[in-house]
């Protein structure tokens, strides 16, 4: 069975080879300066010339988290609809009604989320 997947494996292998080559080439071809003793200014992350205040624990807006939750909800909707879409002609009216009910239910949730302002970026 795996034999028929050979092209996909070849592409993944080629991609990995390309990636390893590209990522490591600079250490071979580029100017070789010791990474251990970076001067303080050079080792800082870029911050428009100000001394860096980065401590490593970043905080980010709750909106990003909200988007991730909504994504899970709607991506699962998409995944459930794909098999129905493939077999829609075979199952006919039954599958159609099921799909409409499923999407309608999700749209109630969607309207709720919209009304509560979760889709407004803050």
């Amino acid at each position, binding site marked *: 069975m795996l034999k028929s997947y050979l092209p996909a494996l070849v592409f993944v292998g080629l991609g990995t080879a390309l990636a390893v080559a*590209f990522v490591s080439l600079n250490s071979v071809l580029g100017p070789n300066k010791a990474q251990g003793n970076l001067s303080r200014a050079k080792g800082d992350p870029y911050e428009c010339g100000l001394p860096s205040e980065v401590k490593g624990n970043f905080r980010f807006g709750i909106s990003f988290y909200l988007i991730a939750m909504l994504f899970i909800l709607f991506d699962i909707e998409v995944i459930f609809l794909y098999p129905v879409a493939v077999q829609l002609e075979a199952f006919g*009216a039954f599958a159609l009604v099921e799909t409409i009910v499923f999407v309608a239910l999700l749209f109630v949730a969607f309207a709720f989320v919209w009304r509560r302002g979760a*889709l407004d970026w803050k």
Partner: protein
Amino acid sequence: MGSALVFADVNFAEGAGVQILKSLIIFAVVLQIVPIILMADRKVMGRMQSRYGPNRVGPYGSMQPIADVLKLLSKEQFTPRSAVPWMMALAPMISITAAVATIAIIPFGDRGMWGGDVGLYGIDVSIGILYAFAFGALSFYGPLLGGWSSGSKYSFLGSMRAAAQLISFEVAMGLSLLGVIMSAGTLSLVGIVDQQAGMWFVVPQIVGFIVFVVAGFAETNRVPFDLPEAESELVQGYLTEYGGMRFGTYFMAEYVNIITISALVTTLFLGGWHGPGPDALGPLWVILKMFAVLFLFVWVRATMPRLRYDQLMSLGWKVLLPLATLNALVTAILVVVT
């Protein structure tokens, strides 16, 4: 089921030697398109802005991509002190590997189109579109990990933006294809192209086409949606701390993704290899249509201003998502009734 691994069916597979050979050829051909697009991108955009674009290196500046790569190769490998070095190296690798792996499903021609019993595609797996989505989703980890592990504020903000943008538009993208899948009754890309012999899906599925193209622009971080690397606000977004060939890797992954998206648009909506002339011209039609879509990418880049982030999010969730869902429902009714 049970303990055994379950694989999706592969509709047609040649001998191992042919499979490896054709994979290598497709890989080489698609990788040749990358510098062409890189060049066309800058040249066409230059012309649209009444300037020449690169014209110093080689005839008409055609050697510019090679010069760029040589320059990037001669740069120092730099990692800021606040970074996580192994993850910073891994992130662009994920991007490029996922981008290259997706090339495998692009169908350039049907089985036996150029003689012999050889399909002119990497693999015709029965879950075709899902394969593209799977590797597309995997490539999100590139910007996300890269920005996070750089240990820089700009990188981190850029990577969070990239993650939120990519997942938002992936939903709309997935929904926009439902109409095509319902009409074709299969997920295999070769099967979908076969269904378009009479009429290209762009005509009945015009709404799905528009949503898919817009979402495709957002998925590849192209200009109206290039907020993850918005120069005016975030320096260079998740790429800020990257330099040399690692930056080049991200850059190349982005262009391979653009080629993949244009190939998917060609396959799903523009009739793939169907076109006037004998069957053997099929792969040429695919490449020609791909270049037409790629020209659209450049055109939009020269035309559109960048969106604001809240505009981007409302476009994804409040416009494209309902539009794609309605399109799917209408198509479902039409498919069942007729």
